[in-house]
């Protein structure tokens, strides 16, 4: 039986990074403006107007950076900012997970390796 794992070819990850930037910054302004599945259902069944937004402090509501007259630029910028935030947040969270639990897992894996080698 064959196993699969994530690729170690650096080039493929670089391509994914480029695709991500292109989608977030260049493609995002051309997304369909139509309501999505849930909004469609809410509209058809008359509860769309029940939707509110508790978070009034949102910096970039609806993916448009305020104060920019061209929506292509303001949405593209919102996408660019978003991918930077995502990388930052996930890098921080996952790194702190590898660090805080590091010692414990290190010992456990070493133990297992010891058994494997004998």
């Amino acid at each position, binding site marked *: *039986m*064959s*196993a*699969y*794992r*994530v*690729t*170690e070819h650096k080039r*493929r*990850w670089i391509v*994914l*990074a480029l695709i*991500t*930037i292109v*989608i*977030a910054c260049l*493609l*995002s302004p051309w*997304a*369909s403006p*139509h*309501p*999505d*599945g*849930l909004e*469609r259902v809410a509209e*058809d*069944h008359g*509860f769309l107007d*029940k*939707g*509110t*937004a*508790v*978070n009034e402090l*949102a*910096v*970039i509501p609806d*993916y448009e950076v305020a104060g920019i007259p061209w929506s292509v630029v303001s949405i593209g910028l*919102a*996408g660019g*900012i*978003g991918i930077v*935030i*995502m*990388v930052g*947040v*996930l*890098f921080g*969270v*996952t*790194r702190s*997970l*590898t660090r*805080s*639990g590091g010692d414990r*897992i290190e010992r456990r*894996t070493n133990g*297992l*390796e010891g058994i494997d080698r004998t």
Partner: protein
Amino acid sequence: MHIPDGFLDAKTWITTTVVGAGAVTYSLRQAKLALEPKRVPLIALVGAFVFAAQMINFPIAGATSGHFLGGTMVSILFGPWIGSIVMTAVLLVQAIVYQDGGITALGANVLCTGFIGCFVGYGSYMSAMRLFKGKGRAIIAWMSAWLSIVAASAGVAILLAFSGTFNLATALTAMVGWHMLIGIGEGFITMLVTGYLMERSAVMTRGGLGHERVSRNRA
């Protein structure tokens, strides 16, 4: 499929917030055990891709659109615990920075598009991979992503019905109906991206298909 504030009543959003917070805490603990340090930048990059891809609504059936969610894709790549953490991070940033998805509905969104999406997708992917001995990986990826979207939409429908918005049968028919179409797009993106980012490993692993088990030792 991001639930805004106001769609869920108090008992529903308070319950889902508590359960969602518990689920995230638990998966942080589980992810800690499965996480390899060298994967950290890759996970961050895939998370950014998920965020970007979720911005692209594609038109379906006239005046409706759908967008990628990504739970199954991330879970196939890194396992469902890390998958659910990535999805939670995406939903958090969307709700806090972009007002996309409600704050009171965050728990519900984390449970439906995060946990249901990741675990239904990953579970069906792994079961089918075992059943067919790894043959037809692309089709299996497509099907499990499609199934995860349908399951997530059923989850949202149940929460809406539980909130007294409309009755369960109507909610399920409407939500599942639309998301059977939207899931087609989810399937294709999941199939293409996992196909591009994964490779056959020559290493024989215990259990055969353990994506996480391939190189556990920390170099």
